[in-house]
């Protein structure tokens, strides 16, 4: 019995090494997934060595002069200090609040800090100085949480520093008191102190829940899964089962066969979209979405077609259906982490430069801008053009390879 068991293992090993498509699952998939997940989650939870970077715009209305000659402008010092940290370097200085808020809305800035008038005077004169911080939760809820958390920590540290400074200034006077009274006065000062009043304002027109932020990503994901998987196997399946041969001897044009297969991929994906949207509305009560069909439908069609184009390339270059399926499975498993569906591309660490130029990352971003209502035609159309060009490129390469290879395997 042992002999038979080992014979079966040996047979499977031979099959494994002789079918190259199996290598994807043996080597490619664990390697690819480990690298991608490592990069993705390594960047999300970076530990001590990696720094979070926040693009901060600052508008400094403080023109006051310190009454104490030894103390320079506190707001200027604050900006200099922020510029020295890895978190905020470089800060972007604005003079116009509406211009800064527009950049925030477009996702170019993570936050806008307004330092109010008399900031320096108030700090030095032991009064409350004020600042307002604008953030926008609609562009990227995850990023928004990180930015808020960092800014809260920053303002808490700032408050503690200034309070400590004030305590140091009055300390000589306090030392004249009895020891018991000294402790009482210092503790009371700490308790009462709020040297900087910070107001954080979320400028999002509508508050989005994570499930709403995710919906465009899921649609993008569905376009990839559907387009890539259906087209990836379609031609390979028809060829392997001999159906392509049957079609090629008929008067039907080979292009009609190709377009028919692609159209079916599009129909299947559209059906999947309807299910995704319906479930989100019924089960998750997603309503706060700008559907804008004149934009979302072309984006979705282009996304599906670009994935179908890649699928077509895989389908025609793979000699067997098994190879085609292996390749599409591996690609979909890896791409799902790279296209910003679950995790924004800017959190992908070393993979970000690759991820952000993938047409499906662009598609996700475009869909989000439209569906979450923070997109303008000016910042949607360049992305749409990029998506259209890459879709055309994938389809053109796929069609060329189809033409070249469709006689090779019949």
């Amino acid at each position: 019995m042992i002999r038979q068991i080992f014979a079966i293992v040996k047979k499977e090993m031979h099959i494994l090494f002789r079918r190259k498509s199996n290598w994807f699952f043996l080597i490619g998939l664990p390697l690819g997934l480990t690298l991608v997940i490592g990069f993705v989650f390594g960047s999300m939870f970076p530990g001590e060595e990696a720094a979070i970077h926040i693009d901060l715009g600052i508008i400094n209305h403080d023109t006051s002069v310190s009454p104490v000659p030894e103390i320079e402008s506190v707001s200027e010092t604050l900006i200099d200090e922020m510029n020295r940290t890895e978190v905020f370097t470089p800060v972007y200085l604005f003079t116009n609040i509406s211009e800064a808020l527009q950049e925030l809305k477009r996702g170019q800035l993570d936050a806008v800090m307004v330092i109010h008038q008399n900031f320096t005077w108030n700090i030095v004169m032991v009064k409350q100085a004020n600042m307002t911080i604008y953030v926008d939760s609609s562009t990227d809820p995850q990023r928004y949480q990180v930015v808020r958390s960092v800014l809260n920590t920053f303002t808490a540290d700032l408050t503690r520093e200034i309070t400590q400074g004030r305590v140091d200034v009055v300390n000589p006077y306090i030392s004249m008191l009895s020891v018991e009274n000294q402790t009482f006065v210092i503790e009371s000062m700490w308790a009462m102190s709020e040297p900087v009043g910070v107001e954080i304002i979320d400028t999002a027109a509508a508050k989005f829940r994570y499930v709403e932020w995710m919906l465009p990503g899921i649609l993008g994901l569905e376009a990839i899964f559907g387009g890539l998987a259906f087209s990836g196997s379609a031609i390979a399946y028809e060829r392997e089962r001999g159906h392509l041969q049957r079609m090629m001897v008929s008067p039907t044009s080979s292009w009609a066969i190709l377009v028919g297969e692609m159209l079916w991929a599009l129909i299947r994906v559209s059906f999947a979209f309807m299910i995704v949207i319906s479930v989100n509305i019924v089960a998750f009560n997603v309503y706060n979405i700008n559907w804008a069909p004149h934009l979302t439908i072309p984006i979705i069609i282009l996304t599906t077609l670009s994935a179908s184009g890649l699928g077509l390339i895989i389908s025609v270059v793979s000699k067997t259906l098994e190879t085609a399926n292996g390749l599409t499975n591996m690609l979909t498993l890896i791409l799902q982490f790279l296209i910003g569906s679950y995790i924004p591309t800017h959190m992908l660490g070393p993979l970000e430069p690759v991820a952000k130029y993938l047409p499906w990352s662009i598609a996700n971003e475009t869909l989000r801008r439209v569906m979450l209502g923070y997109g303008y035609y000016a910042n949607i159309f360049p992305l749409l053009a990029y998506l259209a060009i890459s879709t055309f490129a994938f389809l053109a390469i796929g069609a060329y390879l189809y033409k070249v290879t469709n006689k090779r395997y019949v």
Partner: protein
Amino acid sequence: MSFSFGDHEVVDHVSFSVDKGKCFGLLGPNGAGKTTLTKLIVGLLQPKEGRVFINGMDVHREPKKIKPLIGVCFQESVFYQTLTGRENLEFIAVLYNIPRRKVKDAVSSSLNRVLLDEKDATKRVEHYSGGMKRRLAVAAALLNNPPLLILDEPTTGLDPQARRGLWDAIEGLKEEGRSILLTTHYMDEADFLSDMVAIIDHGKLIAMDTPEALKDSIGESVIELKCDLVREEFVENARKTLLVSNAVPIEGGCKVLTKEPDEVLPKIVELGIKYEVGITNVQISSPTLEDVFIRLTGKALR
């Protein structure tokens, strides 16, 4: 016409013509190049050398005109398993641009010709027997009512009864006046159905004539021995026996070709006793196409 896969010459300067309304049998063992030849004829492959003409038109230059004239039955039964026989045929009818209003009739007519009834046609192909699938494949080739039918090994894998049924169907198609190009490795099939037979081996055409003329060309009789054990030494010595032109092992015995069967038979039986092959049956017969193949190639069909 010639064609090669890399350095391997699969079709080597083969030339023949199929007369209108006749059945032309392309006979050869598995791997002889028959299927490649049919792919060249229907335009799926481009010949390295030579051209194919159908009704005076070059297949590779005028595919749009040629394709509607050909019906092809592939070696493998190529159907969508989860569709019914009728659904498969309706799909193929659309591929052949058969007008929508005529599809139903075209499908019914094709099914009738291969003796598949409407009840069979409504079953999913995955539930068909091997014989039914082959019939459906021939029906698919008939959908566009083509003057030329190309049947690639139409009865491979069928039991004798199913084969016979399909032969009858093909006979019916011949009677309709269609030209048929039939590839097969069954000698009896080629003999029964073909008006002309071309024998092909290793991509080369080695003989071409009517089945009768090919058999007559041997001018020898065949001694067929059934043995318990086919020993190589026995076959070798039988081949060297005086007046024997060739001897080859076949399944469960040996075939000996000779012009003098009465003189040769006792010597062969003697050899059988010497080599203890256990002869169980002896038959002297006229040559078949298989014997022609043995005579020409020195070996039995692979």
